């Protein structure tokens, strides 16, 4: 019998184009997602060297990072406008499919890949955005790349990569009611630290992971980056196969059945060995809130900011508290909120909006709070409107926007004035300066704070 393998090893071995002892492998890339911010210099490089895009058919582009999420026609910043025009021109010149700002398939690149069925188990997927790890939820090896690598993939459809170490994050047991995927991944990062995944590709395993829906799995894999890993994935199973049936870029009929068999066979073999394994008990996980400037600085919503006399890295904690305008030992529920943002590639899919709407229904946003919802894609937005979710949000006093990255990156007009607190519901990223300077951001999953 063959030696048992992890899914990571299986995908890797299948994609090696060239191997030389002691050097990185040349890997074939099955899907290259492109957006307006990290691609202009790559296309420029191609042009300067008189090179072509090798496989426009395996390349897919959208505009998400700096599109306006209201009044699409009005792009206030001429440089943003130029970036989008540049992408448009590049896609035309090189024959790449583009979902532009007005296209029904437009959305955050990591939301539309799965939605269109471009994302499939066993694929190698890259994009010039670190949260490409999201696609790992399908059992794909997906990771973010820099602009030089974007150029390299455009020109050759390959990348030089060192074989990563494998890390098994095993989540045993069952999540409590009201505890979500976002809470779980924040709790994992809080428990093992923001660097525990560095140098590894993570595979999430265990009963609690198996029980998650595809959209929840995407939230988990998305934040592998916040754990320091370049990619995170989950072995495909029936949940994966069911999700992909009928998606636009997924074959149908017999071809689908054959493909589904291949996908099932990709799952990590019983007895396969990882370079490292960590375990966490799902029952331990409570709803989480970050209080600081990195995603590891988080505590249960019932908790409080750290006690400075009891922390290891006192200086870091002190700096983070000062930046956020908080005191030590301050109860999380005493934090004042000025802005609320629901969106980003971590949690802006339909099920996220449904959950949020369920909690918001019949309630009202405090008058001093500005709250916005930015669906992850145009299609999510349409579907939500069909279900009347937009009305629930609007009646509660939320702004209902068009799809894009919005406040996550704040490259468009969705910026927050300095010195205010922002409550990011269901989204990840938060580091010093990530949004605006001196904006205080809390990433939470729950709404208790809003309701005080």
């Amino acid at each position, binding site marked *: 019998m063959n030696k048992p393998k992890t899914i990571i090893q299986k995908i890797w071995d299948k994609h090696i184009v*060239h191997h030389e002892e002691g050097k990185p492998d040349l890997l074939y890339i099955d899907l290259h997602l492109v957006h307006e911010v*990290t691609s202009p210099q790559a296309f420029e490089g191609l042009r300067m060297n008189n090179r072509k895009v090798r496989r426009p058919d395996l390349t897919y582009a959208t505009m998400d990072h700096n599109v306006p999420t209201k009044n699409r026609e009005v792009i206030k910043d001429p440089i943003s406008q*130029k970036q989008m025009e540049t992408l448009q021109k590049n896609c035309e010149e090189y024959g790449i499919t583009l979902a532009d700002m007005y296209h029904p398939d437009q959305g955050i690149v990591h939301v539309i890949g799965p939605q269109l069925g471009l994302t499939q188990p066993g694929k190698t997927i890259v994009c010039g955005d*670190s949260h490409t790890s999201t696609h790992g939820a399908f059992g794909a090896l997906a990771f973010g790349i820099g602009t*030089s690598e974007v150029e*390299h993939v455009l020109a050759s459809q390959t990348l*030089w990569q060192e074989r990563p170490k494998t890390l098994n994050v095993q989540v045993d047991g069952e999540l409590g009611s009201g505890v979500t995927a976002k809470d779980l991944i924040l709790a994992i990062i809080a428990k093992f630290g923001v660097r525990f995944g560095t140098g590894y590709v993570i595979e999430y395993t265990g009963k609690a992971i198996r029980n998650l829906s595809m959209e929840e799995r995407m939230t988990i894999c998305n934040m592998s980056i916040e754990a320091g890993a370049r990619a995170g994935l989950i072995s495909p199973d029936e949940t994966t196969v069911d999700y992909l049936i009928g998606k636009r870029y997924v074959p149908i009929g017999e071809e689908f059945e054959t493909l589904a068999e291949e996908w099932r066979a990709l799952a990590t073999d019983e007895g396969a060995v990882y370079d490292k394994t960590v375990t966490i008990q799902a029952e331990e996980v409570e709803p989480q809130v970050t209080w600081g400037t990195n995603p590891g600085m988080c505590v249960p919503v019932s908790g409080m900011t750290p006690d400075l006399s009891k922390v290891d890295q006192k200086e870091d904690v002190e700096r983070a508290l000062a930046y956020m305008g908080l005191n030590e030992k301050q109860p999380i529920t005493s934090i004042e909120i000025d802005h609320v943002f629901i969106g980003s590639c971590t949690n802006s899919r339909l099920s996220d909006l449904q959950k949020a709407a369920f909690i918001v229904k019949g309630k009202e946003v405090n008058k001093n709070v500005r709250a916005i919802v930015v669906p992850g894609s145009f299609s999510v937005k349409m579907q939500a409107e069909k279900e009347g979710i937009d009305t629930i949000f609007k009646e509660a006093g939320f702004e209902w926007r068009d799809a894009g990255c919005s406040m996550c990156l704040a490259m468009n007009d969705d910026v927050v004035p300095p010195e205010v607190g922002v409550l990011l519901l269901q989204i990840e990223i938060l580091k010093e*300066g*990530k949004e605006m300077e001196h904006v205080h951001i809390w990433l939470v999953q729950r709404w208790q704070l809003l309701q005080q």
Partner: protein
Amino acid sequence: MEPIQKHQGLVYPINRANIDTDQIIPKQFLKRIERKGFGQFLFYHWRFDDQGNKKFDFSLNHSIYNNASILLAGENFGCGSSREHAPWALLDYGFRVIIAPSFADIFYNNALKNGIIPIQLKMAQLDQWMDQAERKKLTLTVDLVNQYIIDEDQQKVYFDIPSYHKEKLINGWDEIALTLQHQEKIDAYEKNNV
């Protein structure tokens, strides 16, 4: 990419861990469509206040660090977003070498692709230079060919760097041209698999 075999330069120390790419170059400066011109925005929120005035409590603004080209930093340098604008900004500002106890994966690769030498040294080895550079001008010489750094007191510290990275840096090779030498293998792979 400019070849680099040996580099002598003034050190700028920044003793912080987890400096992420958004601190290196804040997102509002990502809108250009060229690779050049990002140096002016390097560490922007640390170097400038809201009105765009220089902040003198941030040491990079002190004249003794003018023309610094070697950056000493804390652990996990370059974490966060994958933007290559971070090494572009560092390079454009004048940094050719970054020395830190550890680097985020994507940043490490992005730096190499732009002809910056990322050198990983143990904190214990770094500490002394960090300390010296915080107090006075410190010049280091980095010998990439022989893989060591030497200071003015002739103290020598060897470092590791994968040989294929070293080769590319020393020769300033264009990675895509190297890859396209394997064109036949890529064709064959596509024939069998895609």
